[in-house]
């Protein structure tokens, strides 16, 4: 059987969604005959004539257009060439799309695909994880799939959802992450997954950091530590039940994320643990994020800027020693 990687799963999800629903169309830069900067749409232009449109370098207009199309009953999927460029469309996303249902009662089923996260040499403007910005604003759902199966199923779900979804796909996983099939475990999108069962501590994380956490857990298992890893999958809304359930088992929390340290998902996870799971905690919860600087270009600096299996391991050892 042939292997399928994370970007293939995204492409297949787009394909299947378009095949199933004539209302789905794709809009983005270079996504047509070229197939997109990361080839997420390769072949779709030919398979679905007139439904995969190359657009001008106008993230604001792309995002406003998505809302308009949704009002008229379509299900646009917008590809931002890199998540970082979505800042240019952010106003339309958070103020126009995200407020639309609350203000007017008319839902806005639009999906913004954000190729996210750092890779070596991609530097300060092609590496960002923007969950914190979008999750802060009411009216948006934020997905951060970490597996090939989730890349597929969550993108299908994102397109089916009647609200705007920010779909953060991690560039580091695009080709590196391979599985035998896209068949997943059928978890609904709003549920986090226990990606590894443990009993001494829980790492709550998402996207590419799930894999760093799993590596750290493997390493620690050699010393007898059993680390539970919770893959959030959906960054907003957060699955409090699964987070607190895991804490009930382990009593120890490391909230881990690749984004910048202030606020964001890890702060929210720690807050949930502290406000709602205080009595479950046997030690102070811990956080690990990237450094509080722009994301450096040079690969050694970049590796020191983001959490890695090594720094996660170190953080977990401190947590376990408490």
């Amino acid at each position, binding site marked *: 059987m042939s292997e399928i990687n994370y970007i293939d799963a995204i492409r297949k999800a787009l394909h299947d969604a378009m095949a199933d629903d004539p209302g789905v169309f794709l809009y983005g830069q270079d996504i047509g005959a070229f197939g997109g900067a990361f080839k997420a749409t390769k072949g779709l232009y030919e398979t679905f004539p007139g439904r995969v449109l190359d657009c001008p370098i106008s993230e604001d207009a792309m995002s406003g257009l998505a809302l308009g199309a949704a009002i008229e009953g379509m299900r646009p999927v917008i590809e931002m060439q890199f998540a970082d460029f979505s800042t240019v469309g952010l106003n339309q996303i958070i103020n126009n799309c995200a407020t639309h249902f609350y203000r007017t009662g008319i839902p806005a089923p639009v999906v913004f695909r954000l190729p996210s996260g750092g890779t070596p040499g991609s530097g300060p403007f092609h590496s960002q994880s923007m969950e914190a910005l979008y999750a802060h604003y009411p009216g948006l759902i934020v997905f951060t799939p970490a597996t090939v199966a989730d890349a597929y199923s969550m993108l299908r779900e994102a397109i089916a959802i009647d*609200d705007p979804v920010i779909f953060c796909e991690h560039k580091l996983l695009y080709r590196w992450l391979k599985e035998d099939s896209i068949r997943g475990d059928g978890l609904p999108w709003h549920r986090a997954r226990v990606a590894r069962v443990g009993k001494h501590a829980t790492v709550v994380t998402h996207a590419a950091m799930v894999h760093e956490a799993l590596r750290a857990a493997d390493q620690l298992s050699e010393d007898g530590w059993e680390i539970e890893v919770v893959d959030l999958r959906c960054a907003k809304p957060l699955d409090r039940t699964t987070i607190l359930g895991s804490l009930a088992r382990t009593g120890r929390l490391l909230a881990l994320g690749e984004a910048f340290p202030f606020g964001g998902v890890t702060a929210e996870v720690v807050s949930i643990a502290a406000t709602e799971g205080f009595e479950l905690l046997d030690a102070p919860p811990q956080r690990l994020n990237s450094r509080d600087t722009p994301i450096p270009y040079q690969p050694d600096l970049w590796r020191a800027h983001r959490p890695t299996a090594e720094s996660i391991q170190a953080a977990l050892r401190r947590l376990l020693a408490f």
Partner: protein
Amino acid sequence: MTSPDLLLKAYCTMLLARRLEEKITAIYRAGGIAGGVYVGRGQEALSAALGHSLRRGVDIFAPLIRDQAGRLAFGEDPAEGPRTYLGRATGPMRGRDGNVHRGRPSEGMPAMISHLGTMTSVVCGMLLARRMQGRETGVGATSLGDGATSTGAFHEGLNLAAVEKLPLVMVVANNQYAYSTPTSRQFVCADLVDKAVGYGIQGHTCPGNDLSECLNTIGKAVADARGGGGPQLIVAPFLRLSGHGEHDDAFYVDPALREGPLGRDCVDIAREQVLASGAADEETLATMAGEIADIVATATATAQKDPLPDPYAETWQALKTSCPA
């Protein structure tokens, strides 16, 4: 040439808009409205001409801040304005949004957000969707001010409309000021319509306070868009005859502008045009004014009697999707 009937109809709409907004202003001054009141005084001819050039049920109209007249022309219930200003649960925004941010997107009238320029691309999306669905697209009309032409959103949206060859009708109401800022601090082109060639689209101009000219020019532009001519840019100069909002006494307006041709009140001009066209005489107009007063009184009274939203019953759902916690 504009038909006398259309002139009369549009004049009637203008007057209704003027009186309705005067009433809303009165309620505001009496402390009955929180926030601000933003009126279209001076813009009624342009706005009504736009609204009357469109077909409800077929076309899209994305009104902006000073489009009370266009809204009425497009078929907005006169009570919608007062309801929205008064935050009534019955208004289209149910108290969640206010004043000029109202709309009924599923009826072809999107609800503007404050950020200037942003509705351009929303209308593009509506038009593109209809085309993809193989439906009759209608035209998509929107308006914005001289000041809003400085936004990136205007540029990106208009360019996108040109690239997609969408039947977008963009009306620039050049009322000489953006809040207090004169056009000299907003752009330096000789005429805003000079922008059309740079987008590769058709440009039109008309005096924004001359109803007959507005009807002619916009009518033609709408027909061109409908006929496949792509986006149309209409630039209409006139003077804003109010403050930016009703809190603003507009002390900064150049008196020469007030006294010049741009400063002439479009309602006066339209009235003369109606009389000259023979569509109505003074007596008919007096009767009409009385009817308009009644409509305004009813609309505001209705709105004032309507219930307010109940904060205790509010479910605070920003999403249609319900997500189990």
